[in-house]
């Protein structure tokens, strides 16, 4: 992925491009990500409380069904075509929590449905989420190893 070196003429033009590109409204984006992300977390906490109080799940384990429910909500919103509309405003507020992970998997699965169940949906479902899974597994392995050695 080494970037080719720019000639002076190319560099001069790229400086011009940088000046011409409008910057995203960082403050507005950060604020809307903060509040929408907060709302998602609030919903997650409400689900944990619901599972502990109403469904009698032990508090330590209630996060698991809550996460699964959040994934289901993210997947459904993607399927109904609402998620990308919400994400336009929420940005990282929806992308960073587990809802974003659900969206990346389901949107890819939907997109490649036309290429068949095996080679389309199953093979291409993780084209976007694959990197997240790889890093997740790697990190878990490394920290698991550290935990095993020093515990």
């Amino acid at each position: 992925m080494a970037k080719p070196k720019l000639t002076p003429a190319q560099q001069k033009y790229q400086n011009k491009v940088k000046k011409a590109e409008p910057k995203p409204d960082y403050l507005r984006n950060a604020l809307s990500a903060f509040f929408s992300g907060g709302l998602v977390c609030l919903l997650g906490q409400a689900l944990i409380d619901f599972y502990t109080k109403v469904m009698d799940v032990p508090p330590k384990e209630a996060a698991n069904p809550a996460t699964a429910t959040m994934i289901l909500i993210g997947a459904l919103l993607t399927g109904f075509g609402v998620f990308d509309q919400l994400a336009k405003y929420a940005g990282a507020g929806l992308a960073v929590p587990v809802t974003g992970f659900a969206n990346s998997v389901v949107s890819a699965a939907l997109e490649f449905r036309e290429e068949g169940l095996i080679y389309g949906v199953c093979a291409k479902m993780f084209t976007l989420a694959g990197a997240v899974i790889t890093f997740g597994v790697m990190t878990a392995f490394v920290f698991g190893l550290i935990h095993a050695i020093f515990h």
Partner: protein
Amino acid sequence: MGKKTGKQTYHFANPPVVISTGTVAGPFEGQGPLHADFDEILTDPRNNETTFEKAERSMLTKACQFALDHASCATTEVDLFLAGDLLNQIISSNFTAVTLGIPFLGLYGACSTAALSLGLGAMLLDGGFAGTVLTATVSHNSTAERQYRFPTEYGAQRRPYQQWTVTGAGAALLGYDRPGPKITAVTFGKVIDLGSTDPLNMGAAMAPAAADTIHQHFEDTGWDPNAFDLIVTGDLGKIGLDLCRQVLAENGLNLGENFSDCGVMIYDLQKQDVHAGGSGCAASALVTYGHLYKRFARQELNRILLVGTGSLHSTTSFQQGENIPCIAHAVRIEA
């Protein structure tokens, strides 16, 4: 080399006529300011097909059929079919060529295909190699997004300088002995690489190529830019158009009010939330074969220069860190 003027421009001794055009626009394009100029506006982005790819080729076939019908021309009377699109191995054009059954020359010029096919078609006609040529191109927002970017339902925030791939198809029938605007000259462009690597800002990547071809056209012909009612680039968008204007001004060519861009014209940039404007093969095809062709018919236009712009990268080349090579072709159309 009697037909070549200067370095890159060709004049036609017997200028081919744009006999008729056909356009099919997507639903979103149908909400834009040019909606009255399209032959058909789809109500369903899938056009009742099972896949977006099938929808894309059905639009292309329909646009070709419109162009043929408007001229009451049968497919058997057409010598050659020149077409291209954005999908890998130009499959939309290939499958449309199966349906039409006209000898086919597949072109890849990315979003410059409309201008490229007009220029090449005119050369074939003026050279006496063909009597009637059908040229066409198509792009679809959902197929292009999948191939070049993300799945359509993926919630990514769009950059303020990003463009929106136009859903639509346009076709033009070229020939002789019929009324219509004429193609009098073409300037084929060089591939220009000014170091752009961001595939989300294609307007900025393509602007130097457009500037180079426009500059070369005026250098070769010695004409005054003010002799044109309109000098219109293909799909630079708002930011690319400004950059192109700047680059031209630095090289001593100041273009005035008659300089615009199809990607800017096709949408209402205030209301339609497309950021910098439209892009894709259909941007220049819909604007030229729909809007501008009708303005020629109403005698509102007398002479235009269509500068089709294309970025010639692939998803592989960009992921391997290569720059985006770009091209532009200019076609002079006169009443």
